[in-house]
């Protein structure tokens, strides 16, 4: 599922993200980094909520809304399509 990332990205432990295609850099918080890593690892968008709730202390409905919002942010930033 890697294909829905726009280009190659390096994500460091600290949440620093480098877009090799555009040269832009970003910071992700822990949850954001977790999700981004899963995307890089090929997880399907539909599974991400489950992955988040199993890893973090959060109710499913909140995680669903937040993941949704996070995807919107990634799209708006043209990181995924």
């Amino acid at each position: 599922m890697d294909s829905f990332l726009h280009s190659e990205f390096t994500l460091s432990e600290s949440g620093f993200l480098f877009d090799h295609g555009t040269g832009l850099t970003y910071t992700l918080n822990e949850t954001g980094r977790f999700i981004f890593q899963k995307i890089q690892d090929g997880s399907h968008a539909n599974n991400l909520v489950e992955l988040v709730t199993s890893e973090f202390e959060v109710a499913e409905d909140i995680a669903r809304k937040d993941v949704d919002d996070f995807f919107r942010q990634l799209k708006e930033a043209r990181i995924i399509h």
Partner: protein
Amino acid sequence: MVVFNVLSVHSMFSQLLFAGSSLLNLKIRTDDYTMTEKRHYSKPTIIRHTVGVMNKYGRPPATVPMNRLVGHEVKELVENYGSPLFVLNVQELRDNYRDMSRAFMTRYPKAQIAYSYKTNYMKAVCSILHQEGAWAEVVSGFEYDIARNLNMAGENIIFNGPYKTKAELMRAFSEKALVNIDNYDEMQVIEDIAEELGTVLEVGIRINMDLNSPPWHKFGFNLEAGHAFEAVKRALASGKLKVVGLHIHVGTYIDDLTIYSRAAQGMVEFYRYIKEQLGVTLKYWDMGGGYASHNTLNWAWLPAEQTCPTYDHYAETICPILLNGPFAAEDAPKLFLEPGRALVDEPFSLITSVAAQKRMPNGGRGIVLDAGMNILSSVQWYSYNFQTGQDSGSMIEDTTVYGGLCMNIDVLRESASVPQVRRGDLLVIPHVGAYNISQSWQFIYLRPNVIAIEDGEVHVIKKAETREYVQEFEQVPDTFTK
């Protein structure tokens, strides 16, 4: 629909294990980590690096959660008293008064604070300040009546302002209030009153000077143009008035101390001159209000905490100059100060809730609060801070903060640093005690509760409005409904 890959199966599995583990209270080891508890969650966020955003140590105070106010959970206060909610820290108000009074009295023993009612004339607020020893400074018959209703003696009330009716002046003089004359029309009315009462009335004269740009020329008589001298001369000429006071109020939110030193200098020189020329002896002089509070003006770059002088700075600027006046130390006139915002701004906070979040067409973020400029009119002047009432993480974003009114102009701040918040999250706006409540207007929404907290106890000092209250004085003639 669901595509299970290895990772997500693993994760489903581990979730089951996790549930089991908590049920059985067992610790289950997997290869890579101990599954005792889940990680702390915050809303997933990504922020692009642009100039200025790349300094996470430049975190504004907004990310430091303010989940307690005066010893109470912000969340609980809202559960009990609703949102939005004004909260007064009573001790802070008392401390402000005591500190300011100390700063002036240690430098000018005959200093007396007369609290500027218009800043916030809620009965509870005025009562606390009177308890601490403040006199009342009022600028209308209505405010005068509030003070009298709180049992302030007339002689502890200073009556200022450009428009006082004859009846109000009559009441003030018969109750021995201190009246500062603003204009010649008023002077004539007061002469009539003196005639009717058959006595010579003691009065103060309000003067103004060219101190700031634009100068405050609306009130009183101008010094540089010679009007102030003419006014004193004219008051004495009638034989019905005796000038015993001088009053100046240099403006509001004056953080430039040189304005106060010039004003004090001007007062001293003017006193010397009218003493020599007209034989005036002052019983009091009144340096007015205008002392700044810890709020940052919209056009200022540095935050107020770095630019706002302390009470001691103001006192040190004003008192030594006045003490050089034309009198022996023991005959020094009483010195009045009329602080408003410097006393009541900081002790009040407003708790509000996030109603909505939006992405603006330019990519920026907007949030809508349940409080609007109808209860926060000072957004015209101040760039308020928005502190989170809960831990909202440290990922801040430039945000336009909108008030809840269905009016395009209801913007509380064009660009504020706000962490990631959701609908229902609480924000605390500190330092909102001056002018917002007395200038609030009932519009679209009902105005909220105002509570005061002291010694752990919560008192409702103004109940939230109801429809019945708002419509109490309205009448619909029968003929409109038949």
